[in-house]
């Protein structure tokens, strides 16, 4: 039911104005079913590219990515992405945006009930008929999350989904994501540059280098939920990760 992911020796280059730009360098990573994996790395290191490959939006230049043991051939509604920007369709209401997946696949039966269920799940009841331009940033991102969840994904791919939200909204949405993941049990891949977010949410943290991204280290983070942000073990883990990313703790706390 839940999806394992096997990234095997993947390298990738982008074609920027005719010049090849290497973004991923021999990345190998096994994600067990139901794991919550955070990909941490400096901005512009190629994390998002890795997600696009796992989503099937692009093919890796070298290496293979397996989902359920089979090579990824293209996008699949079992692997759903939530991007940094909610990218809602402005001409559709909240409910119509959420129903995009079932509609695209021609699944008419039970659509209304399914929409109502996820609307409730992400706390948007009463906003079904609102248009995207009427929503706040946090609400728009909730719609994007609901649009992903209605497809009952077995792998949820999150590309810095909370990075543009204000800090209070971000905290509450992190909590909601966590409880959704614990209830539904989908495998989760989260790209973030927020070390604390990774520590509080993920069961495994993958630290990537600057571009072209390589895996620097993989840290298991098996602590029980909910996690206390001031847990001394998490704090020391945070120092270690920041050091790996080339930021010393003093610099960071001064900032």
């Amino acid at each position, binding site marked *: 039911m839940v999806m394992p992911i096997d990234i095997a020796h993947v390298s990738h280059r982008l074609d920027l104005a005719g010049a090849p730009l290497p973004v991923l360098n021999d990345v190998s990573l096994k994600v067990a079913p139901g794991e919550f994996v955070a990909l941490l790395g400096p901005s512009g290191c190629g994390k998002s590219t890795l997600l696009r490959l796992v*989503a*099937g*939006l692009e093919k890796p230049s070298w290496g293979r990515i397996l989902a359920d043991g089979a090579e990824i051939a*293209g*996008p*699949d*509604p079992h*692997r*759903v*992405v939530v*991007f940094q*920007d909610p*990218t809602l*369709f*402005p*001409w*559709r209401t909240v409910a119509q945006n959420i129903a*995009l*997946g079932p*509609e*695209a*696949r021609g699944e008419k039966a039970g659509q209304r009930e399914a929409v109502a269920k996820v609307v409730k799940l992400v706390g948007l009841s009463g906003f079904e008929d609102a*248009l*995207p*331009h009427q929503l706040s940033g946090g609400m728009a991102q909730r719609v994007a999350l609901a*649009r992903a969840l209605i*497809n009952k994904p077995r792998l949820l791919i999150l590309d810095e989904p909370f990075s543009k939200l204000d800090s209070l909204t971000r905290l509450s949405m992190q909590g909601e994501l966590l409880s959704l993941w614990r209830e539904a049990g989908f495998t989760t891949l989260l790209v973030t540059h927020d070390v604390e977010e990774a520590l509080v949410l993920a069961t495994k943290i993958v630290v990537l280098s600057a571009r072209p991204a390589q895996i620097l280290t993989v840290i298991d983070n098996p602590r029980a939920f909910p996690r206390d942000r001031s847990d001394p073990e998490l704090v020391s883990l945070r120092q270690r990760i920041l050091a790996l990313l080339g930021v010393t703790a003093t610099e960071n706390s001064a900032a």
Partner: protein
Amino acid sequence: MDGAGFVSRIEGQADSRPPRSPALAAAAVAWAAFAALVRFWPDLDDSAAYGDLLALAGLLIALPPAAAFLFNWRWPALRRLGPWLTALPIGLGLWEVVTAKTLWLPRPFFAPPQALLEVYIDDWPKLLDSLVHSLQLLACGYGLGALSGFIVGVSIGWSRAVGYWVHPVLRLIGPLPATAWLPLMFFAMPSSWSAAVCLIALASGFPVAILTWSGVSSVDRSYYDIARTLGANQRFLVLKVAIPAALPHVFVGLFMGLGASFTVLIVAEMMGVKAGLGWYLQWAQGWASYSNMYAALLVMALVFSSLISLLFRLRGRFLAWQKGLVQW
């Protein structure tokens, strides 16, 4: 504002009735004055038999604003029109003075308002017939042009192969003024009517195609990414993503195409089609009946403006999700 005015405004709010509008009184007075001017200032020539009728019309128009003022009716639409209802009889009065009353603008090149009234009363069957012909021609030509322009635009924007072959052709043919095809079309097509349809379609199709194309190719790529990860096929991507996202551009094209189609319609009717408002203008000029020409021009202005309103209303329906739409 003085104290009494302030109090009356408060009271007005209590029975939810705004204060009397002075503009409505001014409008009533202006229309009555216009009627008196037409009726009692004798014309320099005796040509206009409909002066009395015009005066009567002026008096009748004066009634609603007068009543609305005296009985302080609500009727917000009339209140909003107050200033225009005042300016209109003043303008008409000036027109009346410089034509019928003083002949500063000589006949037959300039016609007084009652001459237009005469045309509408005596010649309405022919005018109506011309209008119907024009509208039929316009509907066929514009409909054909808008539809084919839309389809061409979507295909160029969507398919690289279609773009490769059609885009250069469009670039070559598109900038040609549709009227330049006129001589060719009139002998190449079986009838002057079908030639006119083609010309109007050509003129309106080009802007629609270009703007639809630009709309489709400027769609945010991430909309496609989202739809693809959710399991959308090509058909869904075109019909449910590309086209709705491109609609704001499409409507700009439809608007530009509509303007172009008016031009070509009138020219085609003047040159070859033996019916329609353009033909009526040509005919009126041939007989030196300039008042018929003015009357037809006024009809044209009203009809074309209404057609644009219709298009804007349609756009308002389709693009209700957009903020800050321009009102026509």
